């Protein structure tokens, strides 16, 4: 399969801070790819290097085979980036901004049908002639996404597009982005919402302190790093001492045990029987990306808490 995005040994220093420590990443065309990590992990730095907003200290990056430094014009032509900050130009209305944005990429009136499609897909048709300044926060976010799509780029990068966005807009946005992905666009998503990445992304990279600490399909990551959890409600009985090493949490008689493999459930139930502890309720819980994330990126104390909040 052809490559949409490639990073080769990308390093980035900001003074004494080594923000990216040799990132190697290949994203094939047509993939819905997730880039996860706590604040300061280097996700936005990596995306800004791809977009040409930052220069790498060393290493190379390419979009659709075009180097982002040497052949930056072709690389940017193939790339649409939704910035993280809610920025807008107060002088113009939504349609004007989309026309300008397409025009910078060499597209003229022949692009108007596509602009209409974006406006429709993002629920902006009614606001097409509204000044950017007068849009609500959610509408501004939609307009920002629309601007990144105005030149119909084959590769779309969404840098935390749903931060502070209500549920309705989030659903509408994802439906539209999934449609683009089905049509062949490569999507790279950074998000704080792990369940979003789990639902949408076929493959995920997790970053920590400027390094990729995990890179695999979402399903493999879930299998590899996160076993199932056993939720037990034991009423007033304490958890037998032999099960304490498996305990993830325990409050008010409700305990969560981490199972590395399913056979451990048999062991847990046996130990409970041996100790004459009666089970009031029991649930086997599937792992999610949050578990993977916590096990890879570390304990809540080093930033994961913030991400998962």
């Amino acid at each position, binding site marked *: 399969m052809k490559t949409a995005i490639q990073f080769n040994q990308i390093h980035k220093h*900001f003074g004494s801070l080594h923000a990216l420590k040799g990132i190697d990443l290949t994203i094939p065309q047509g993939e819905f790819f997730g880039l996860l990590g706590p604040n300061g992990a280097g996700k936005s730095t990596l995306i*800004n290097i791809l*977009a*040409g*907003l*930052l*220069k790498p200290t060393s290493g190379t990056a390419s979009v659709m085979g075009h180097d982002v430094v040497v*052949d*930056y*014009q*072709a690389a*940017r*032509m193939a*790339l649409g*980036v939704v*910035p993280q*900050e809610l*920025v*807008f*130009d*107060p*002088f*113009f209305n939504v349609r*004007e*901004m989309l026309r*300008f*944005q397409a*025009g*910078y*990429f*060499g*597209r*003229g009136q022949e692009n108007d049908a596509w602009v209409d499609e974006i406006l429709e897909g993002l629920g902006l048709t009614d606001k097409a002639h509204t000044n950017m300044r007068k849009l609500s926060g959610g509408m501004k976010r939609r307009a920002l996404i629309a*601007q*990144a799509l105005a030149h119909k780029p084959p590769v779309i990068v969404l840098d935390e597009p749903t931060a502070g966005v209500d549920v309705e807009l989030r659903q509408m946005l994802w439906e539209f982005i999934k449609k683009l992905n089905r049509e062949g666009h490569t999507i790279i998503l950074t998000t704080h919402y792990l369940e979003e990445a789990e639902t949408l992304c076929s493959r995920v990279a997790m970053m920590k302190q400027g390094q990729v600490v995990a890179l695999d399909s979402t399903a493999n990551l879930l299998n590899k790093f996160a076993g199932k959890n056993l939720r037990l409600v034991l009423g007033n009985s304490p958890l037998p001492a032999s099960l304490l090493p498996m305990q993830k949490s325990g409050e008010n008689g409700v305990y969560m045990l981490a199972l590395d493999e399913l056979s451990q459930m048999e062991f847990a139930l046996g130990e409970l029987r041996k100790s004459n502890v009666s089970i009031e309720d029991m649930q086997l819980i599937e792992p999610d990306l949050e578990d993977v994330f916590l096990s890879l990126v570390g304990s809540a104390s080093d930033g994961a808490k913030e991400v998962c909040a």
Partner: protein
Amino acid sequence: MNLINTNNRGTYTLFKKEILRFWRVAFQTMASPVLTALLYLLIFSHVLEGKVQVYDSVPYTAFLIPGLIMMSLLQNAFANSSSSLIQSKVMGNIVFILLTPLSYLQFYIALLGAAMVRGLFVGLAIYLVALFFVKLPIAHLGWIIIFAILGSALLGTFGIIAGIWADKFDQMAAFQNFVIMPLTFLSGVFYSIHSLPVFWQMVSKFNPFFYMIDGFRYGFFGKGDVSPWISLAVVIAFLFALAWVCLKMLKSGYKLRG
């Protein structure tokens, strides 16, 4: 790498956007400088007509008008590119331009073009309004056009440099008030430098704005404090120097790309 030819529409789009940006607020960007220049004209001509000796047989009010036109033209060319950049930087929407395939040269051409258009429009408007007050001769139309174009290009470029350099609005205001204003006011807009003491005549000759105004004025009266050819050489040299600095800044991504 092809810096221009691949995406002419991109350059034109940015140029058009920059034109529309000041046109949408034309009351502030066009009408206001014209009114200011007319107030200068009314007050100074009323106070100084007949009291200040300029060139033989040229009334002071007529002498003043080309200076005022050029001063406003220069200030507005500077204001356009500098304010566009500083606003985009502070608002963060400069990212929309930085994400595009536009080269640094295309960026320069588009911003400079719009700055020149605003400067030239303001200059032309002041000229047309001033015709109601006084009859102005035109000795050499060619010199008028050349200095108007070069002056607007020089200050448009200066504005881009200032816009890239400044991080905040107050830095830009300082640049405008402590650099641009003194250079324009002390360039012979309101007087001929021959009326100054010898020392200040010398100092004036180190001010590039003096040559733009003197060369422009030569086009109207066929008379100037220095030869228009010297003014032309100085203005072109300054324009090339500033354009070189500006393009170097843009190419390196100074304060725009980290």
